[in-house]
């Protein structure tokens, strides 16, 4: 059987890619995708931990289902906000959102 740590490393890598995406991408839609990557990293973590530590209970799987449900809701709200900004400024580039600063 593949050791647990392999799954955790994949999840950690995915999480780091997601974090990098949120911090470095300029396009708001790409940032939204990066957020989804971090949540999927969490899902891999949860399922791996569930399978290796406690497969008799359903907490881990149930939690993963909640996570992607929430991720879908979050994506819907995020896209709605992006659209309302696009209607005002014809742009979804994060750096141009600069009315609010110090």
């Amino acid at each position: 059987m593949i050791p647990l740590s392999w799954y955790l490393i994949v999840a950690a890598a995915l999480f780091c890619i997601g974090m990098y995406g949120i911090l470095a991408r300029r396009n708001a839609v790409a940032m939204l995708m990066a957020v989804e990557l971090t949540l999927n990293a969490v899902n891999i973590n949860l399922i791996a931990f569930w399978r290796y530590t406690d497969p008799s209970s359903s907490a881990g799987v149930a939690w993963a289902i909640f996570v992607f449900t929430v991720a879908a809701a979050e994506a819907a709200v995020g896209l709605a906000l992006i659209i309302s900004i696009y209607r005002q400024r014809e742009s979804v580039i994060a750096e141009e959102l600069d009315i609010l600063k110090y």
Partner: protein
Amino acid sequence: MLTSYLAIVPEIMLIVLAAIVLVYGRHPEGDRKRAVGLFTSWGILVVLLVTIGMSFAGVPGNVPEDLWGGMFRNDGVTLVFRVMFLSAALITSLITVDVKRLQHGEYFALVLLATVGFNLMAAASDIIMIYMALETASISFYILAGFATDHRRSPEAGMKYFVYGAFASGVMLYGLSFLYGLSGGETNIYALGDALSGHIQANSPILMLAAVFVIGGFAFKVSAVPFHFWSPDVYEGAPISTTAILSTASKAAGFSIFLRLFLAGAMGAPSRDNWWVLIVVMSILSMLLGNFAAIYQTNFKRMLAYSGVAQAGYILIGLAAFSDEGASSAIFYLFMYVFTNIAAFGVLILVSNVTGSDELSDLNGLSRRSPYLALVMLFALLSLSGIPPAAGFFGKFFIFRAAIDAGYWWLALIGVLNAFVALYYYFNVIKYIYLFRSDEEDKPIPVSRASAVALGLCMVGILYLGILPQGLFNWTQSVASAFLP
């Protein structure tokens, strides 16, 4: 079975109320525009009275009830926070009644759903529930912050809050998934506490990493340094009534989870070589950065945002004390902060309805224009800066006393010194109100009856807690010692 449903009666009522408001308040016309907000306010008042009435009838009783498979814990702490959140939602919806661009059913429905999220956060005793409740509140707030789509700043604030918020909840969730794995598949926070203190050393590196991630997520929620960067932008750009509830109830909800999770030892018991140090450092940095950055602000909402960062720092002192007294003084502080901060934002809403902006200079000559509004603002600022007879004095007093009793006199000293710095910028606002003149002093600011009631409630709260704090403090102390292990 019945007890399970009785425990969530306030939440069920709020959801039903939200559904009614959403269906019947979609495109209000004419007289019905104000009716949406008034109906919501009456509804929240009923929920608040039912919640208090049920507590006299023994729900929640003297023993904590773990319901819904250990997801939901109905106890005194839940009750205190519920009363706090419902008061905040009530006052906020009253001050929103006459704001033209927010007179939509959707706005009030989202305020109600966010309140459900807060209540569940205070009651959550399972990390799955914590995550779900947190997201219920956060997703509602992303929309509330971006609600004024005709305004250039509001969608930008919503977008910023969304990106940072989603990032923070992702980080926190990643930390929580490690807690789940390290404890061998526990999700209940009390079971986590037992598992993690029994089997794993409190300072194992992976547990530390998980704790840092989880603390990061919560620090975002309560806008503590170094996760405060969103708050000035979002507070400034969001509609004022969103800012009012975001700065009070949302912060308090974050702290309610902080309290339960940490005091249950769900990340290992605190000690000087693990995450406890982080809380102390965050507290000191929040106070310093919040207070010194607030001095330079010219926008009133932005100033209150930095002041809110500093207030989070004071409350973190109560957590760092790590005692019943610290927890109860933190709850007391959050309670008085609800009345104080919403009073300040309530006056600002009325002023900016007339002037159209929210700069400090809009408050020029307010004492001659509308002396009563000026008085409410004066008491709000006195309370924020911690001067008797306003409630803030006892808020700070209890927090610092808890820190000294726990042996952290140096932390209390840093807090007191910071409170002196804060005096400067709060009194600066009083200078605008009482000393500066404006050309429009002969035109009083219109105050509707709903706003007058809301501000009156805030004043009663500020003065009552400032003159007779014992009632509330005894209550928070008894629940903290009984239910926060």
